[in-house]
């Protein structure tokens, strides 16, 4: 396919700079948010300039341990996040989705993956030097890497991460990570810096602890964190694992939220509904969701799949084992692990701890895995008398659902909560 696409990275950078410029001096652009956009600019600028600077680009799918990439001074490119950020910041990504379809990808295949394949095919994303992927979390992820390798004519490495999480499986995953290091050393010509990896792991541990502390503050009534702020936490996790700027951002955010809690200030002027958000809202409706949140005093107080880390600590003395263990602590793994009572009870416990009035499940129609869990979560929450709204949508494709449809269903749901 001919390289005809608009450069997605340039679009993201332009949008981030514009948001920062427009927000300058406003209350909305807090120091932590300013930091967040600066971080995005840094991440995507490194990617844009990588070829020029002679850097080695390691493209990787979601949950691939980017700590290893950072420890070897390679330039990471988180493929799915880059796709959904294109949708978030440019409002549409029809060109890359159409390009994905031209490759023969069916409309049922999740759009971040269809989009990323399309983006590589039309040259909207820079060609990576290696493609790294794993079976975390779904069959699309497991297959995406092979397609990108073919499209970009680059070598690749697949991590086979076991489904269950006993020590035996963790040891197996450590073996996979050792092979990954050998592969990257061979392809990039750079050596793994084990001391640096230990430092990164120590920082990642702190990062998780900071998110846990932020979550504690979010239990306050009124809750201090913005309705869609969790997407920033998610991006920081995905793009900056164990990076100093992530710590700085989280510490600043923690201080801001602590101050708000002390003053009794909430994220919305009058908090009426405390909501649990399940799965990913459509990126192109984020501004609308923020607006309706203010309008109705409805604010997301916890997102079990994004911000609610599993138990455990990371040990810098055993960096690879920690990276392996982390893959089982990631919040999303609540959905992609064996769906037993333990997993469901954690959601119920979460709803109670955060004094949730209702839950909203953003049912990404392209994600068969998450949609298969809807009824399980709904029934579990209903048992403690918490209603759940399911909103069919797509994380990046605006043709699946409209703002008007979302508004109508959300208003009905808020009425239901009010009537209770």
């Amino acid at each position, binding site marked *: 396919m001919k390289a005809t696409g608009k450069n997605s990275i340039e679009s993201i950078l332009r949008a981030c700079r514009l948001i920062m410029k427009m927000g300058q001096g406003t209350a909305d652009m807090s120091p932590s948010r300013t930091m967040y956009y600066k971080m995005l600019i840094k991440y995507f600028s490194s990617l844009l300039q990588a070829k020029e600077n002679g850097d080695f680009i390691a493209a990787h799918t979601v949950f691939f341990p980017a700590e290893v990439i950072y420890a070897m001074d390679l330039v990471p490119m988180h493929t799915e996040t880059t796709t959904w950020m294109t949708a978030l910041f440019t409002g549409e990504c029809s060109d890359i989705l159409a390009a994905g379809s031209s490759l023969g990808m069916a409309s049922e295949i999740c759009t971040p993956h269809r989009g990323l394949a399309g983006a590589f095919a039309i040259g909207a994303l820079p060609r990576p030097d290696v493609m790294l992927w794993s079976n975390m979390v779904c069959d699309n992820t497991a297959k995406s890497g092979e397609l990108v390798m073919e499209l970009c004519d680059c070598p690749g490495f697949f991590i086979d991460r076991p489904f269950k999480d006993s020590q035996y499986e963790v040891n197996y995953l450590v073996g996979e990570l050792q092979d990954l290091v050998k592969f990257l050393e061979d392809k990039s010509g750079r050596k793994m810096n084990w001391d640096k990896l230990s430092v990164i792991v120590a920082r990642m541990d702190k990062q998780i602890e900071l998110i846990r502390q932020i979550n504690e503050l979010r239990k306050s009534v009124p809750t201090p964190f913005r309705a869609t702020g969790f997407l920033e936490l998610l991006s920081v996790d995905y793009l900056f694992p164990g990076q100093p700027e992530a710590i700085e951002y989280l510490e600043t955010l923690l201080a801001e939220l602590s101050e708000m809690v002390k003053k009794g200030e909430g994220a919305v002027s009058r908090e009426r509904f405390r909501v649990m958000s399940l799965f990913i809202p459509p990126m192109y409706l984020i501004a609308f969701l923020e607006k309706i949140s203010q309008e109705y005093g409805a604010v997301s107080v916890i997102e079990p799949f994004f911000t609610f880390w599993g138990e455990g600590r990371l040990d810098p003395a055993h960096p690879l084992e920690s990276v392996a263990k982390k893959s089982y602590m990631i919040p999303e793994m609540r959905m992609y692990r064996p769906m037993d009572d333990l997993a469901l009870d954690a959601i119920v416990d979460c709803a109670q701890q955060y004094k949730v009035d209702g839950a909203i499940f953003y049912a990404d129609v392209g994600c068969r895995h998450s949609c298969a869990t809807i009824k399980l979560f709904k029934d579990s929450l209903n048992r403690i008398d918490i209603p759940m709204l399911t909103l069919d949508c797509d994380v990046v494709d605006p043709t699946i659902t409209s703002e008007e449809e979302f508004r*109508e269903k959300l208003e009905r749901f808020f009425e239901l909560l009010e009537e209770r």
Partner: protein
Amino acid sequence: MNVAGLDIGSLTTKVVVIEDDTIASSGVIPSGEEAESTAREALAQVSMRAHIDSNGDLYIVSTGIGGKSISFAQQQKSITTCLARGISRLFPTARLLIDMGAESITIVKLNERGRVSDWLGHDKCAAGTGIFLQQMAKLMQMPLEEMAKISLNAKSPAEISSTCAVFAESEVISHVHRDPPTPREDIVAGIYSSLVSRVMALAKRVGIEKDVAVSGGVALNIGLLTTLEKELGFKILVPEQPQLVAALGAAIIAGENIDR
């Protein structure tokens, strides 16, 4: 103060006026191009019948697809909330409401207080809605009332797709032109079965709990209700004027608001 509920649907506009906690008057008129003027006309007609000044002291709550565009209504409420209030007034034991309107099917689960505890809508395809039935009647070249009547004599309902209105139409045409043609009553019963299977799929997702009531214009169709009852395996509660349930609920909410 008297109160009124206005339900602005895609095909019809419904009005219920309540005076001293009882229905003083009600009416249904076809929805025009402009929701506001149709609503005014409907309200004027119904008020006149109840000897109430529609321009006078009247607290109005509007609902339905065009409910938000009624500038003279004091409040707008969602259709689910209004359906729940309306059906609970008529049938306090109802725990599940199946609303079958012109363009949508909505299943509303009710708690013991008659409030919405869950709902599910089917709004992506016209298959299974009132407009779908109208199309089928046109295709069968008979009025809806006759369709309902002949369906009761069906011996072996035809298989009709329940997933797409357009596909269903082609299937009906193929049944009509078969040699020998499928008996008309079997085709009609097949159409109803396809609609009911869509309703049942939604109802099962919300959870079927007795008593089950129906509302919406489609609930006037006796053939369809018979098929639905057969599928459920028990009797359903049918209001005398099922198309007025949401307007009634809106009027009840209006009454609650002025009492506060």
